[in-house]
């Protein structure tokens, strides 16, 4: 029990960092699902591309001779480039792989999404190779910077990741709750045809949703690179699965649900790693998913809509 308590704060820190990343990925899934009822399998790969864009920018601005810009500016440029790049990628995917299937059966769009995911993964493998790359976070924020909170160690890198993620989530919440675009998004999610009849340009809203969701995934990719440093072309698959699990646990289509689900999943995994074994963290996360779905089939914050004919 003492050991349990002694480890608790550190596992909390780990879980919250991991959860922040999951939550960002889950948001993209949830938003797209809310509007199109489409399971966007390529989302995890967009996240992977984001990590690689961040890596490219870092390599360009941080040669071995020393940084070209102040560290905070480099991180900012990495984030912005990755978010913009992934956003554009997301729009492209929507335009070419999902839009022609807008009125097709659900299965068709899903298979198309699998195809996109496969294509992106292998395109990255073809052009960039199959090896692991490592972010040189240490050259930006030395690992020695950090604070000891009780028994836990909160490094500056982890704090930064959490703060950035939370800021992005706050911005997204503001966007969805308070702006015209957000209102349009909520309207389209509720009923696309009715929204179109009242003058909402549904296609534009869908494009905006894809842009925002993919940009968040890109940010998550960069944060993953900064905190966990190792990236490779296949990272998107597992992360996408986790992101979707988080979205489902929270209640798919619900934005606060995605955040809640992400943090919940991150904490579950951190505790599973800390107290049981890192080998079984995915198994335990999966069991949590099944249990949540059995108790609340619509997720924690979601509700199953009764089907009307």
């Amino acid at each position: 029990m003492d050991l349990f308590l002694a480890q608790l704060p550190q596992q909390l820190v780990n879980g919250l960092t991991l959860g922040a990343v999951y939550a960002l990925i889950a948001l993209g899934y949830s938003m797209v699902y809310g509007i199109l009822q489409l399971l966007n399998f390529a989302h995890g790969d967009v996240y992977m591309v984001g990590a690689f864009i961040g890596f490219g920018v870092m390599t360009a601005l941080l040669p071995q001779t020393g940084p070209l810009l102040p560290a905070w500016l480099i991180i900012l440029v990495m984030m912005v480039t990755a978010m913009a790049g992934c956003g554009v990628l997301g729009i492209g995917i929507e335009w070419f792989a999902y839009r022609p299937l807008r009125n097709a059966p659900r299965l068709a769009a899903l298979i198309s999404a699998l195809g996109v995911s496969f294509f992106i993964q292998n395109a990255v493998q073809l052009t960039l190779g199959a090896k692991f790359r490592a972010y040189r976070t240490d050259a930006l924020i030395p690992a020695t910077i950090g604070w000891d909170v009780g028994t836990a160690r909160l490094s500056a890198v982890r704090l930064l990741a959490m703060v950035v993620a939370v800021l992005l989530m706050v911005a997204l919440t503001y966007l969805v709750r308070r702006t015209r675009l957000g209102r349009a998004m909520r309207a389209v999610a509720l009923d696309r045809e009715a929204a179109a009849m009242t003058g909402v340009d549904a296609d534009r809203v869908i494009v905006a949703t894809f842009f925002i969701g993919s940009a968040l995934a890109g940010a998550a990719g960069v944060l993953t690179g900064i905190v966990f440093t190792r990236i490779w072309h296949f990272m998107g698959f597992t992360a996408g699965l986790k992101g979707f699990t988080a979205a489902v646990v929270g209640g798919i289509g619900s934005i606060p649900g995605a955040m809640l689900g992400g943090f919940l999943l991150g904490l579950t995994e951190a505790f599973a790693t800390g107290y049981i074994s890192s080998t079984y963290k995915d198994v335990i996360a999966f069991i949590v998913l099944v249990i949540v779905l059995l108790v609340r089939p619509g997720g924690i914050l979601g509700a199953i809509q009764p089907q009307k004919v």
Partner: protein
Amino acid sequence: MEKFGRDEWVAQAEARRKARGALGRVTAPWERLPPWARFALFVVLAAAVPQLIHNDYVIRVGGNFLLYGALALGLNVVVGYAGLLDLGYVAFYGMGGYTYALLSSPQFGIHWPTWASILFVVVLSLGLGLLLGSPSLRLVGDYLAIVTLGFGQIFVQLATSFDRLQVPWSDQPLNLTGGPNGVVNIDPIRLFDFAFKTVAHNYYLLLATLALIVIGLHHLNQSRVGRAWRAMREDPLAAEAMGMPTKRLKLLAFALGAAIAGLFGALFGAWQGNVFPSNFGVTLLILLYAMVILGGLGSLAGVLIGAFSLSVVPEMLREVELSRYLFYLGGLLVLVTRLRPWRHLAAALVGTIGGGYLLKLGVTNFWPTLVTAPQPSVSPLGRMVQNWLIIPPNATLIGNLVFVFVVLLLLFVARAQNALARVVALIPTLYLLAFVWETRLALEPSITRLLLLGVLLIVLMVYRPQGILGQRRVEIV
């Protein structure tokens, strides 16, 4: 039987859509054959292959086709008949393989008789299918997909990590699955004192099992249950309202698919003599889905055609010269069928090749360092391509950049509304596509295979979601 209860107009949709003209004359005798005769022809042809070609590699590829075909048929029961998106299908296949392996290998020194282990594998897969299916079916639509996908991932993870399993009754960790090293030296299938040891033996074993499965599934599809599945797939709500036990039907499909996968997992393990976690990954899952969808969801012949085209054709990509022919001829075929009128086709081809000649002539004269000497190529096609294609010295890097660019160009061409713009954009696209093929894609056949698979899935969904032999839904609105 098929047409029972359908609207007259819908029932005749088939006849209306039949190929007419020259194609119709070729396909008509085939169409007139009863299904059993067509299938018998297939079995006879397949059985003749090892007799005619005494090449282990060819027979192995053939055996792979039969294996994939059978797996795709099982997946077709779940996805094509019942319309359930099961992304954990490969896990049942792996479970079958591992279970058989543990019951008939030196891993624990257990050597059950074949019939007992096969029976056990099938029953276990059925049970697992029911077990995984029953909670999943409470879930709506895509939730099923994610739970099953998670299940598939977990299977691979457990198979990889169960080589150091802590067990309560012993201090030593138990080596259950051999981890990444897998289970090796699995016994071959042994029936009536005959061991299926060689590649050809296993080929016939797979063929016989596949034939039984096809016959069984054909009859099942025509049965009450088959009709109920189709009704449920088309409209689950209406089916339920008509009093069909949808939950039970779904579970049945799920468990049947799992049993087929498990059975062939065992046959796979026995054939290869070893099983590794990497045999049962996502790549295989996507490949199987591509097979089922390419052939046409719900069509038995279609699924076999899909399995054939996605298991045998990619083998040909391994050979550079052969893959070159496939690529250029395939590309030409796509252009001929998709590009109308023929003036545009001619313009695009002349523009690409003629422009390529001129470009190469100019570059060779003014910047000779940019062009490498033509490589000795064995095939006439390779020499022909080198006449108009510039291959610079550091081709890998440029090839990578051009790859990204050519994807963008292709997307533009695919979505261009203006016919003129499309043809004009097509010329550099084709040129650069050939460039990327020669510098990158042909050199990385395994990646190229998967890339093409992804593209195939997208293109197929956009242009022909029902697959090659699938039936388009005919609806009266």
